[in-house]
């Protein structure tokens, strides 16, 4: 594991301070939420029982945290060792993405003091998609920390310290691929039961497949984007060569996604709603343009060698996946006439606070632990 090393340097930078401020604001609203109930800070209602917190913090947050999952597929399952240097930083985003998603679930559920029921077999309902999602996410958070544990061990005892863990790591790697496969698809299955309440533009039995493919694509895209951001932020040389090769996976995944997506829409004859007007129509086209953009940008090979194009394409890809998830969980959701939802300011600040904690954690970890790869020798 000599390819990664701590970045070092001061932890309390200006970026860190801004993140800390947002975390404090979010924390203040969280106090309100626990003192006065969910209605006091959020715009969620009986029509929209799931709002920003489930949609962004959990559904999108974990998809953004699929970097570790995507890289594990590539490096360990498809045995592409050349990408190994990217694994650990991808894992770190996953660790924070998933841990905070679990925390978000805790603040979102109304009866949080019963949270442990999800883990106790006597309560389990095996028909529930949410049970599977919850169990997989809980397990995966543990697996992610184990997968990431060598970084801690190496920090304390040098490269040899993680020897013991590495010996059985393949089991956790296998879990680390199986569990996201299960729950990222099931996050899509979650909305199947909502039936007519979800617009026909999105409601399909293919939701699990579409969620899985887009989650993997988002994982790769975020790994790409994050690599560039950390290069900029920490003044490190760009990893364009390796990243460019990695980004080559994305168009294939997206084409597969779009074939299933549009094929399904055509098969079900649901295209009519794409011209039906209103926010669902607008967001449907925004989503699809965002999915097509990275394909167009990344398909020509020369583009994959241009760092700027790569970065932008990866960004659009991440946005596409996020918009798709927003559409499925909020925009396309209409429980009955008359209901509307847009997150309240305090609700958004809580989410911003959680993202800020994520940023702060990332900043601390990359400086203190061997996460980022040693600079490429170009």
């Amino acid at each position: 594991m000599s390819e990664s090393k701590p970045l070092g340097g001061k932890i309390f930078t200006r970026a860190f301070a801004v993140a800390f401020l947002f975390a404090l604001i979010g924390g203040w609203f969280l106090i309100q939420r626990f003192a006065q109930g969910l209605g006091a800070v959020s715009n969620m209602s009986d029509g929209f029982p799931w709002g920003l917190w489930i949609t962004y913090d959990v559904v999108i947050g974990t998809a953004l945290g699929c970097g570790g999952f995507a890289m594990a597929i590539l490096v360990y399952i498809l045995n592409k060792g050349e990408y190994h240097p990217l694994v650990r930083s991808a894992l770190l985003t996953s660790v924070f993405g998933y841990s905070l998603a679990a925390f978000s679930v805790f603040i979102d559920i109304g009866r949080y003091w019963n949270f442990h029921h999800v883990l106790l077999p006597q309560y389990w309902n095996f028909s529930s998609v949410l049970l599977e999602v919850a169990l997989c996410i809980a397990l995966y958070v543990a697996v992610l920390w184990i997968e990431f544990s060598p970084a801690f061990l190496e920090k304390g005892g040098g490269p040899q310290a993680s020897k013991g863990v590495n010996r059985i790591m393949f089991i956790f790697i296998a879990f680390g691929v199986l569990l996201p496969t299960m729950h990222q698809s099931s996050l899509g299955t979650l909305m199947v039961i909502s039936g007519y309440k979800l617009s026909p533009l999105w409601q399909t039995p293919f939701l699990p497949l579409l969620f899985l493919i887009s989650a993997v694509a988002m994982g790769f895209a975020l790994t790409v984007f994050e690599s560039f951001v950390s290069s900029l932020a920490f003044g490190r040389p760009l990893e364009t060569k390796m990243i460019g090769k990695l980004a080559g996976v994305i168009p294939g995944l997206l084409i597969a996604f779009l074939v299933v997506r549009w094929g399904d829409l055509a098969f079900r004859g649901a295209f009519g709603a794409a011209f039906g007007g209103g926010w669902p129509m607008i967001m449907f086209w925004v989503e699809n343009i965002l999915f097509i953009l990275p394909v167009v940008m990344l398909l020509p090979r020369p583009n994959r060698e241009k760092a700027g194009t790569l970065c932008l394409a990866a960004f659009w890809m991440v946005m596409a996946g996020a918009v798709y998830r927003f559409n499925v969980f909020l925009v396309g959701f209409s429980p009955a006439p008359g209901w509307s939802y847009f997150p309240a300011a305090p609700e958004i600040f809580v989410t911003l606070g959680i993202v800020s904690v994520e940023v702060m954690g990332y900043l601390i970890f990359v400086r203190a632990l061997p996460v980022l790869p040693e600079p490429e020798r170009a």
Partner: protein
Amino acid sequence: MKCGECREVDVGTTSRAGNLSRRDFIKICSAAAVYMGLPAAMGAKIAQAATARRLPVIWVSGQECTGCTESLLRTDHPDFAHLILDLISLEYSETLNAGAGEQAEAALQASVKAGGYVMVAEGSFPLKDGGIYCKVGGRTIVDIAAEVASSAAAVIGIGSCASWGGMPSATAVDMGGKSPTGAVGIAEALESKGVKTPVVNIPGCPPNGYNFLSTVLYFVTFGKLPEVDDKARPKFAYGRLIHENCERRPHFDAGRFAEQFGDDGHRQGYCLYKLGCKGPETFNNCSTLTYNDVGASAWPVGMGAPCFGCSEADVGFTAPLHSPARPIYVTPPALFTGVDGGPKGKATTGGALVGGAVIGAVVGAGIVTAKKTGKKAEEES
């Protein structure tokens, strides 16, 4: 009388039961105008018309209990004496006739011959067996009514009996489900004799005297009968269900019912629907007009007795007293929610602002990062 000078002296042929000042008289007429839904200023016109010519009225009584007359006796503005002495000229009434026997019958004949009168029918008219169940002076009442009506300007049926047959027309099991005397209302009785004089009905058992008075004054003033519904009832009085303006309606809308007489809900003035109140299927203005000028709640429902639908054919005297009404239509009160419940859920300006800012910031940051990355790549190469 304080105002002797300005007294409207309209000396009748008989002695006066009391004196009525012009001001009081116009007040009465204005009140009558208001009952009919006419502008109060119309009171002056009514007063003028009523003073100019006292309308001759012939009261024909069939199978009746005199309850309608009794009810009229209890009116206060005007009292009955003023009605029959100042406002109308009562030519013949079996209950109130000064004379009797042939003398009275002769007066009737004279009045009929003079014409230009209004006939008031009280009580029902038996048609069975040639109408032999009710006779006056050896003639069947149906014949008398037909004769009087044929020369009348209009016919006013007062009370439920005159309106459709009322209590005497109630069916009896041992009579094979038919009325023992074949009693019908005045309109049907006249029709059977081929008389086509227009009929207006003032049903009720008894009807509110003011509904009758207002109808008479309307006729005196405008020379025609007021607008009526399909059962020939004046719309000003019978246009709405009792239920619609009932003082207990809020309890109905809130689902609070008296379950039995004297229970907690009954004492608290809850809705009497479950005790068999027929307000939801009875058209009348009892709930707004009330009776006998003694103040609020002076009507059956106000007293805690369910309406029994006296003024509604097929309800009063027909439907069991305590069986629930079969509402004709239910006007949704304002507090009902529509099927979709209107706009629900929350979306706040603050959220939209912050949300917009965050989306803008994220997209902006993405594009800026890409630009910076491109620049850095150029620098590196």
